């Protein structure tokens, strides 16, 4: 090798060192199996489904989507799902705020949070079944209503039943999340506001709420996405052929009753698109609010 070539080779550090400088070495590779797994079993099926939705059994590229939007039996599911998801999300998130405000100073908070985790753990199927008995015409709830003079109310196999189950399984989530955001707000901020003359209501509207706003927005996004995907409760506790025929039922039927996987993928894509649209809307609204740390400075 000539002198010039030798010096050149010596100046350039070996590949391993260069990679190490950018934090890539054997340890970094540990992330590969998990990442590969998610790519193969999440990203790929999504992409596959997306492509598949444009390859219908009969007709051209958009035949599935056209079929969906021209058949009321199909496109009404979007409305039915929104009719459930939006009120459920609003109730769950908005009610969580006053409750979290009360509970945050509780001393035995853990008892309450443990109790609330139970419905989440049991899952929607069990809650649906439980409500079928409890809210049924012979169940304790209606008996109690009769006792206090209101009389029987139809609470199962209809919209109300599904709504109640969405609240029962959704509220613990939103409550725990709101609580964690609330306790993340520096308490000295409210103290400072009090010394400056702000009463409880003023402290809430001027200090707590603006700082909570970004957490509430995220809470709404996650809650909406979950409620929009309602499935077992809509079937077991609702009227799956009628007012609670939600979009997930349409997807299920396309896949497992009609064996039309292309159509099923199309429905799944539409479902994902609706969720994405609402999430974008909420996040766009969030950009008008404060989006930073909820502490009061250094120290």
């Amino acid at each position: 090798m000539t002198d010039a070539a030798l010096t050149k080779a010596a100046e350039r550090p070996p590949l391993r060192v260069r990679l190490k400088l950018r934090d890539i070495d054997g340890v970094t590779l540990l992330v590969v199996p998990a990442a590969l797994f998610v790519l193969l079993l999440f990203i790929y099926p999504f992409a596959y489904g997306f492509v598949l939705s444009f390859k219908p059994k009969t007709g051209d590229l958009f035949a599935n989507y056209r079929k969906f939007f021209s058949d009321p039996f199909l496109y009404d599911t979007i409305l039915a799902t929104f009719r459930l998801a939006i009120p459920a999300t609003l109730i769950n998130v908005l009610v969580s705020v006053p409750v979290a405000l009360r509970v945050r100073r509780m001393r035995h908070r853990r008892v309450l949070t443990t109790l609330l985790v139970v419905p989440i753990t049991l899952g929607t199927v069990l809650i649906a079944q439980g409500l079928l008995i409890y809210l049924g015409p012979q169940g304790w709830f209606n008996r109690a209503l009769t006792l206090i003079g209101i009389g029987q109310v139809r609470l199962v196999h209809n919209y109300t039943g599904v709504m109640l189950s969405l609240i029962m399984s959704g509220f613990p989530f939103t409550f725990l999340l709101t609580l964690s955001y609330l306790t993340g707000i520096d308490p000295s901020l409210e103290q400072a506001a009090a010394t400056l003359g702000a009463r409880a209501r003023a402290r809430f509207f001027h200090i707590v709420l603006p700082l909570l706003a970004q957490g509430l927005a995220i809470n709404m996004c996650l809650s909406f996405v979950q409620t929009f995907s309602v499935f077992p409760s809509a079937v077991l506790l609702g009227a799956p052929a009628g007012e609670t025929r939600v979009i997930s039922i349409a997807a299920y039927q396309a896949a497992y009753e009609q064996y039309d996987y292309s159509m099923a993928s199309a429905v799944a894509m539409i479902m994902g698109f609706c969720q994405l649209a609402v999430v974008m809307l909420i996040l766009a609204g969030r950009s008008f609010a404060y989006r930073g740390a909820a502490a009061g400075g250094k120290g």
Partner: protein
Amino acid sequence: MQQDKSVGERLWAIAVWALVIFFVVNVIATIAAVAVDSFGTRWFSSWLPAGFTTRWYKAAWDEFQLHDVLVVTFEVVGAVVLLSGLLGVPAAYALARRNFPGKQLVILLFLLPMMIPPITFGIPLATVLYQAHLGGNMSGVILANLVPTVPFVVLVMIPFIEQIDPRIEAAARVFGAGTGRLFVHVLVPLLTSGILAALLLVLVRTIAMFELTFFTAGPDSQTLVVTLYYAVGAAGVRSNQSIDAMAVIYMVTTLVWLLIALRFVDPTQIVTRVKKEAAA
């Protein structure tokens, strides 16, 4: 803070607490209704059943082949717990300790399955699995259930690992430990409580995970929750008591593991760990 309660404030506080108590009472009542029904002889027109019996449990055991179902459930859950740990913990370590180009993208990759609900990706996933001839049997069910749990383990473990002072690891390396021995002798002992917490949470979530198993299971690869769904769905207007017995068995299974998990983990972490990462 000094707070004299005015009448208005007191009323509001009472109203909020009443709401909370109402909610909790209804949750307990719902669960109790299932349990009571499973032990009742006949229950049609009174507050409590006419008599009590345990025969529905035997009936359910036979009718729904609960022995097989429970075996399947635990095989699935066991495999999911093991595999998500094996895949997730090393990945979490890499993400906690290395700041490589594209790291944000990888974290997003792990966030997506957590934020998108199982139904939305479940059907395309099931389609792919069936195409690969993995649908309708245990491998398919296990693979499907791994999709949300691997990211879950990763996202839960990252903060745990970040808490360990990297200088401890540096010390181990200076004394001659390679990555393998570092894991076995230093990291895993320090991380045990975190790994245990994460895996217990995975266990509880997978037992209750309905949609993914529902879409990928065949007749002999159903978990308990799916069997329960089919039974309730087929029962018509009201589930009969053997179904309730099965439901109680399901409840006891989940709640026992929940109680064990709660010894290691705060209830809020089941929910917020993941969602906090989503917010970050």
